[in-house]
């Protein structure tokens, strides 16, 4: 494992790619690698990108890549696409828009499927970002799925978060109100050559003026940019701003803050997954009990049973989670 880490440090691409597969599959030595990574990284800012599908996230990242490369930065990109809930398969199509960088050895693009994780990121995303960092890529750009669901996860691991909006993608007024702007450090309106985009830009400004966050923010809230990612119009200005944020994310204090947030996010993900798994097992057992039948027939109260099940699941977790053969207390009790 140490050899692998060394090889990645020495810019061995294939090792980096394989290590990403390892953390993505969560098999074998993945846990050890993740532990190693945690201590080995946290020096590089991660830039988060979110926004509705089709709004131009990949196109914007492509445009930023060109400019970051011109400034001699080695850039890592993680692009998330949703896993099909039906087949477990996924169509990873974001890199089509970045193919001009395919042969650049100083760009590493990796497509990731969400593998049924909610929140727009996969469990492996954070570890893959650390791997990119280990491989000398700086900064690391993370593009979320952007299905309009709760995407707070990106805000918890990225140093700053760009929310990309554009005209013609669903009811964007609703989108704004639904709150992705809450997690935005930078709001970018794409396709600004279209009149509707100009209108959208106005609405975003208006909305942000009223938002609680803007009022609280001493620096005056999120920055707002209008761009045209395809032609590159406005991208320079945006990049200048992102680089300034990147710079101010580099002091020790900011690095420590970022690392703590990421580790908390990591624990939260890991713990929630364990809880959910334990709960699912408990429920499977519970559904064959007489108490369950009583509930179904409306003869007992759900709230006491639910809290008992929850408490039992937690107890089971602390006494050794992840063991498939473990039966929860609730299941055992109710079977008596």
């Amino acid at each position, binding site marked *: 494992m140490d050899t692998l880490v060394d090889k990645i440090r020495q810019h061995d691409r294939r090792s980096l790619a394989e290590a990403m597969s390892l953390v993505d599959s969560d098999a074998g030595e993945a846990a050890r690698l993740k532990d190693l990574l945690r201590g080995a990284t946290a020096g590089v800012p991660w830039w988060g990108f979110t926004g509705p599908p*089709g709004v131009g996230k*990949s*196109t914007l990242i*492509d445009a930023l890549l060109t400019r970051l490369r011109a400034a001699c930065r080695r850039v890592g990109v993680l692009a998330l696409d949703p896993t099909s809930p039906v087949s477990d398969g996924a169509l990873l199509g974001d890199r*089509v*828009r970045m*193919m*001009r960088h395919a042969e650049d050895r100083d760009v590493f693009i990796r497509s990731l499927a969400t593998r049924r994780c909610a929140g727009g990121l996969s469990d492996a995303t954070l570890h893959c970002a650390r791997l990119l960092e280990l491989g000398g890529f700086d900064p690391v750009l993370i593009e979320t799925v952007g299905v309009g669901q709760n995407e707070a996860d990106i805000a918890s691991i990225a140093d700053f978060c760009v929310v990309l909006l554009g005209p*013609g993608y669903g009811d964007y007024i609703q989108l704004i109100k639904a709150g992705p702007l809450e997690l935005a450090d930078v709001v970018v309106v794409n396709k600004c050559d*279209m009149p509707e985009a100009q209108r959208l830009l106005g609405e975003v400004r208006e909305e942000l003026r009223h938002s609680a966050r803007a009022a609280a923010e001493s620096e005056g809230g999120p920055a707002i940019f209008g761009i045209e990612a*395809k032609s590159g119009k406005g991208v320079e200005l945006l990049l200048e701003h992102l680089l300034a944020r990147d710079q101010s994310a580099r002091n020790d204090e900011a690095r420590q803050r970022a690392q703590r947030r990421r580790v908390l996010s990591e624990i939260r993900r890991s713990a929630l997954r364990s809880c959910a798994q334990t709960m699912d097992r408990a429920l499977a057992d519970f559904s064959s009990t007489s108490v369950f039948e009583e509930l179904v027939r409306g003869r007992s109260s759900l709230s006491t049973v639910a809290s008992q099940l929850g408490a039992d699941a937690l107890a089971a977790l602390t006494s050794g989670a992840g063991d498939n053969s473990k039966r929860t207390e609730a299941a055992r009790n109710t079977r008596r």
Partner: protein
Amino acid sequence: MSDPLDRELERWKRETLSDAVAKVPERPERRVTASGRPVDTVYLPRNLSNAAACAAYLEQIGFPGEYPFTRGVQPSMYRSRFWTMRQYAGFGSAEETNRRFRYLLDHGQTGLSVAFDLPTQIGYDSDHALAAGEVGKVGVAIDTLADMEALFDAIPLDRVSTSMTINAPAAVLWAMYLAVGAKQGVAADRLTGTIQNDMLKEYMARGTYIFPPAPSLRITTDIFAYGAEHAPRFNTISVSGYHIREAGSTAAQEVGFTLADGIAYVEAARRAGLDVDRFAPRVAFFFGAMTDLFEEVGKFRAARRLWARIMKERFGAKDPRSCTLRFHTQTCGATLTAQQVDNNVVRVTLQALAAVLGGTQSLHTNSRDEALALPTEASVQLALRTQQVIAHESGAALTADPLAGSYYVEKLTDEIEAEARELIARIDEMGGMVRALERRYPQSEIEKSAFAYQQEIERGRRVIVGVNQYVAKDETQPAILTVDAEAARRQVARLHKVRAERDPKAVTRTLDAIEQIAGSEQNLMPAILDAVRAYASVGEICDRLRGVFGEHEEGST
């Protein structure tokens, strides 16, 4: 003469048919059925005594050669002149393709259709790294005017019409054609033919783009303007639905997206200051023909009627020629199967018949072995014979629009027109075709249709003979054409020889001029003509344009 439609028929004969027949007389063969029954130019609904019913008929269907052209663009249709039998050909070097052209002309083909190889279509010279393995493969390799001279050697350009499937570098290849004409002593205004020059469908379906949409449209309109002034008999665009259909669209999508492209070109030409009636008559179309005979006939009729209405209602065209949708048809290559290749002959026959019953102006019939490789000479001859049998023996050419009045075909015509109209309205809402392409609207609609169609085949809900039913075991493939591996090397050698022998100063000067004009608003055509005459190559010219216009990347629309 109490029937109002009889009076209309007399009027049509007097006002429309007689002029047309005076210009292009009917063919001398007997116009009778196989059993000797005489056949009229056109057949009409009977007993249409009610004036309102007669008016409705005239509005929807009418007479051949008259608005809304549902029944065809010429009054006497194939009684005067068959469609142009135009086999798409080209492979290897210019000399080899020249031999194939002459072979086809000797066998009764009446027009030429040039297939270019992919490097030529994407503006790379044969010695470019990206051309590796592709030189001369799907068409002929053309690098410089020297190749074009060899391609048309001993073929008098005043006596053939030539169609060129060329899009992104259309201006360059067309300039070469004009230059070869000049060398043969044929002035540009006597040349006839068509260049495809349809970039919008490249972004939608075909993929051989070079520049982003905006400069592409600018080159397109430069060609329109130059053609209107100097080569008025040349069709300067062939708006193509064929590739949209081949990518898996439905019939209605083929019509809707193609005509929406047509609208975008007319609008671009108008913005460039061209008068609609000066430019629109030089717009040609190109569709595919699938095996579903009746739907295809409905599609062709719907396309003709809808275009006529668009030109009149939307663009206020006054010249009837602006309202006529003239089209080339190719039988759909995607329907050919690699299994039991002889079945393809039958498919192509039905497809060709659909095109003829649908009133096509020219036709390419695919060869039986094209799912395997480029066609052999014998296969091409059989494909051409298929057209000749339909022309001379089937009776389909004896009367205009023989399927008119079929309850089924009229209904299909109406439905396809309505559906295509809706698609065009959707694109209008998005702000036009360029915008719709950016949003991937047509692309994703086509992908959905293609996926659904293929799923039906996979699930056996659609039978393809020899593929998912009636499958033969242990088939052996027929002998196929292989392109001489040496051809690419010879082509590169010739390019190097031309480069060594031409006047380098003239090349640099003319290329510099192209670059400078590309950055201005002037028409690019004269500068491109100068450069090809100086034997500058396709790749050199396109590289200069890339420098000014940039390159299009997939996914960035």
